[in-house]
């Protein structure tokens, strides 16, 4: 029932909201997908990546290049983008999962900086600093409303797939590794291989988010692979709640709404505000926004 209400809201809201909010909603869906893919690693695998923008950018550039250079149709380019990102995640991840904790984070960051540098410097292919412009979806999807629904459908299906992965045997073993890698080994899990598989899946869906964003934005830039973009899912997950599957979704909604209304009014103070918000949530609400809901529903249950 709750699901039907949510679905109905998602279908009706874009029709009644002003068009700039439709654009915001589209972006929320993309950020939510990116953060949920990121949280497969952080929340369920216990691996904190500081360089997930690499896979977002690989997806975005793959989609843009396939449409612009190879003249592929947009759906095919978008469908290929996650595979390019996954290939990148497989290659970088092979080295990254050999490390743990801080070293894991730093190596993931280093690889993302490499991706950024390549995108920035390889002017003949990527256009360097100028990026790739006029990456638009076909006419049928060009209106903000059409692309909003399209994004809801694609990102929604992708998040359902991620949900299924979390609840699958693979997801169980991934959580077991998060809890206790040594014990996981002694029940027969090949820990590194499992972590690499998770890394590739996370890269795959990050790349899909990047592909969606390329056509949403109409252009791609090297910034997509930069630090700021890497920290975005981290902030979103911290805001929304790391322990819950839907934490990143809640975080994306909160993050984008704050950004829309505060960053536009007072752009100079936006980082200060965001920083304070993160500190507040981490200290006062370690379960994130979702924790607020869960604590209330827990109280209701306890009161019965």
């Amino acid at each position, binding site marked *: 029932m709750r699901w039907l209400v949510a679905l109905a809201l998602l279908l009706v809201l874009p029709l009644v909201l002003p068009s700039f909010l439709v654009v915001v909603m589209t972006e929320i869906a993309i950020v939510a997908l990116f953060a949920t893919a990121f949280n497969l690693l952080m929340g369920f695998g216990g691996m904190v990546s500081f360089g997930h923008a690499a896979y977002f950018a690989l997806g975005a550039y793959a989609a843009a290049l396939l449409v612009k250079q190879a003249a592929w149709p947009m759906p095919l380019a978008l469908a290929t983008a996650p595979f390019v990102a996954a290939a990148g995640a497989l290659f970088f991840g092979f080295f990254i999962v050999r490390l743990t904790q801080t070293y894991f984070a730093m190596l993931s960051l280093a690889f993302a900086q490499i991706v950024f540098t390549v995108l920035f410097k390889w002017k003949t292919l990527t256009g360097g600093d100028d990026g790739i412009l006029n990456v638009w979806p076909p006419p049928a999807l060009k209106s903000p409303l059409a692309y909003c629904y399209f994004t809801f459908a694609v990102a929604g299906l992708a998040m359902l797939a991620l949900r299924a992965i979390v609840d699958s045997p693979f997801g169980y073993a991934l959580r077991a590794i998060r809890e*206790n890698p040594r014990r996981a080994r002694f029940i027969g899990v090949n820990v590194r291989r499992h972590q690499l598989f998770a890394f590739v899946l996370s890269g795959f869906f990050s790349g899909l988010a990047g592909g969606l964003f390329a056509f949403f934005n109409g252009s791609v830039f090297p910034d997509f692979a930069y630090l700021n973009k890497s920290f975005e899912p981290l902030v979103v997950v911290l805001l929304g709640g790391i322990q819950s599957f839907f934490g990143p979704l809640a975080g994306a909604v909160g993050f984008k709404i704050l950004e829309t209304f505060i960053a536009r009014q007072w752009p100079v103070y936006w980082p200060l505000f965001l920083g304070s918000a993160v500190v507040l949530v981490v200290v006062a609400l370690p379960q994130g926004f979702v924790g607020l809901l869960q604590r209330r529903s827990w109280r209701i249950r306890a009161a019965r």
Partner: protein
Amino acid sequence: MADPSGALVLRTVGLRKHFGGVQAVNGVDLAVPEGDLRAIIGPNGAGKTTLFNLITGDLPHDSGQIFFRGAEVSGLPPQALCRRGLARTFQVTSIFRRLTALENVQTALLTHHRRHLDIFRPARRLYRDEAMILLDRVGLGAQAAKPSGIMSHGDQRRLELALALASEPQLLMLDEPTAGMAPRERHEIMALAAAIAADARLTIVFTEHDMDVVFAVARRISVLHQGGVIAEGTPLEVRGDPEVQRVYLGHRSKTAH
């Protein structure tokens, strides 16, 4: 390289490991036949846990060989040994604390049945009944839905036993299974392990500080001292061994009483 003595589940030959200048395990030859309930005892620092870690692939050894069910397994990682039928528990309880007791055992069963890379099916119902049987077997049936991290210490140790049993091992290695437990509980969990071993016809090797427990359940005892085996035999033989009396038992009974 084939091991000549086929009836042995576990055999080590000249196993050595040093940490810096300390020779923690110094040429251990161990032969554990099928169905044995073998205690490895020795004073603190005798090398019991290191020996366990070498045998189970948790630590690389410097030299020597390890045979499991007739095949050499030296250098194999823990997950490969687990698949061949070697399971273990740890001195410090090692479970998946934020998973429920049921999820703990289900994950172990899923992995044992090589289903753990499957991303296309929900896991919730898979091997659920089997997991419940295992939980009942160790006396945790009523706590299946509890996050394992908030269970009592004794129950966590039982859960770890269930995790080890999930892989249907031929050899179960228990590193101080009763550590941190009350005396009555100690006898309970060892009796439980022994009963399970008898049912499933599996071999157990365990270390233990509580001599009452050791002499109550062990079929044979190996005494480790300064990284080497100084005596081996039935509880009666070991108790009467003058060398053991000197380095371990005598010393202990003096401090204990």
